[in-house]
């Protein structure tokens, strides 16, 4: 069993049971389904729990940006705290606004090829390439943790 999960099931249930687990989230740590408290609590719980925060794991996977040090987590916690002020505003009956130009139709041009044939130009900026291909290392689903 994953060392992190074994810790989980040993400690009292209440100190971990504050996370909502979506079935689609593939992580190496499983949490029992529980109530969700405020987003900040959620994150803080994740930070405090010694098993590590599945929220941060998930975020790192999505964002492909690692931010594991305490400073990074603190920054995120502050950002959430700041954003929580939004909940003071009453937005009943208000439609979300995507764009200030929502009353207009976006311009769509004719489906004609007007430019292109610039393969060499575009390949110039890539570091690894073979003939006309961009070269990437093999892809896998989960992020390999190097630390």
């Amino acid at each position, binding site marked *: 069993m994953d060392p992190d999960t074994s810790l989980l099931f040993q400690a009292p249930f209440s100190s971990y049971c504050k996370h909502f687990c979506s079935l689609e989230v593939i992580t190496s740590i499983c949490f029992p389904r529980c109530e969700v408290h405020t987003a900040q609590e959620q994150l803080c719980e994740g930070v405090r729990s010694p098993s590590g925060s599945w929220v941060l794991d998930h975020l*790192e996977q999505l964002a*492909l940006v690692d*931010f594991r040090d305490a400073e*990074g987590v603190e920054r*995120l916690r502050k950002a959430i705290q700041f954003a929580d002020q*939004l909940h003071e505003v009453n937005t009943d009956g*208000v439609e979300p606004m995507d764009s200030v130009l929502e009353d207009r139709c976006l311009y769509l041009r004719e489906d004609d090829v007007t430019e292109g044939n610039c393969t060499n130009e575009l390949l110039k900026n890539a570091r690894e390439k073979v003939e006309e291909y961009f070269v990437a290392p093999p*892809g896998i689903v989960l992020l390999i943790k190097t630390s």
Partner: protein
Amino acid sequence: MLRASLREVSAALREGHVTPTELCQRCLALLKSTRFLNAYITVAEETALKQAEESEKRYKRGQPLGVLDGIPIAVKDNFNTAGIETTCASNMLKGYISPYNATVVQKLLDQGAVLLGKTNLDEFAMGSGSTDGVFGPVRNPWSYSRQYKEKSVPKSLSEDEESNWVITGGSSGGSAAAVSSFTCFAALGSDTGGSTRNPAAHCGVVGLKPTYGLISRHGLIPLVNSMDVPGILTRCVDDAAIVLGSLAGHDPKDSTTIQDNFKPFELPNLPDVSKLSIGIPKEYHAPGLSSEILALWSKAADLFKNAGAQVTEVSLPHTRYSIVCYHVLCTAEVASNMARFDGLEYGHRSDMNKSTESMYAATRREGFNDVVRGRILSGNYFLLKQNYENYFIKAQKVRRLIANDFLKVFGSGVDILLTPTTLSDAVPYMEFIKEDNRTRSAQDDILTQAANMAGLPAINVPAALSERGLPIGLQFIGRSFQEKQLLTVAKWFEKQVKFPMIQLEEVKRHSHDVFQHQKSASFS
């Protein structure tokens, strides 16, 4: 000659008092002697001189392309420029040579403008001080002005005058510093939360944020697609109108530009404001607003009143939520926009090659600084399924409330809003870096942000010098696509206040650490 306005120097070129190559050389020389300001990341000396030569040929034939022909300009380094490095002040794009010109850059070049170089900024335009780029912070030219030096009291005899320098504001600090120090006649910036108006206020120049949808964003490396606009920095309002005239209009490559026909306009020589209604939003009397700026704001309102305009207090009740709303929407859009930087097709690429994901993650860790990564992480957090409704959608709803506030006020007959641009004059760099980027941005964008939320045009006009001898500006916010009215009012105000010209003193000693950053700047 370099202190002249765009219009004046253009006339001088046409009359043959100066040639484009002379002008270009003089600007380049001044640029070299003001390198310590760190306003430019890349100086395109060769191409600029070539462009100047072409312009000279056109003037000799008597066929200049327009008012901008031969005029040296600078462009913020988040606009793509073909053949010239575009870095966004980030390691991610160091060495990236763009294959195309941004539409606005192309338009300027088509008019014959001479592109001197790319200016410094906060990394990926995230910040309000122009201090967080990898090429180092930009220094406000006013730090070296007689006006500032006369007012600053050295704390000790041994204090290095270098440690006293003040920031330019951000994120278009390099562009503002370039215009303010006379190395160019106009510069392009970008404005997402106040990034053009904030440094304009701190550097004593005119900063125009046009209506969203008026100027093409094609080629502007995006931060927040629904709020970004290219900004214009000049030394006077007339010049801003000239540059706006050559940039505005529909672009088939940017479908968010409106299709209405744009007619370039000239501002009246003697603007009349007596028939206007000026609104003073009371919520802009924000906590932390310096008493100097408050007094200046009040004096400005009186100026309009005495000229016969109707000046009324108005309310924009959701103002204080605009910065929170911006925080959520900005980080969410940033999370999406920064996803394109993976090292595969362009930009920095890590040597890590165990797997695609680990290569991406390593590339992004190496390429982005803390600020960018922090925003990406926050943005992804707000976009998580369980948070989407509570944060992202909620923020979009609050955005509509903010936009509606403005609609209501303009609908009640108010033509222009008059507000301060910043809470105080420029702070010294040593003080600025005591707080982190997010806190500073939240503090500094408070007065400029709402205009981006609602997509409205806004302009900073330098109004007076503070007690410390530094510029303070005031902001005018207008109705959508009513730039002509906005600029007319701004011009009238500019004539009234007669903001003093900066008296730049020659800097006798250069600090050693300034030259460290010059290693990374490239001359092409």
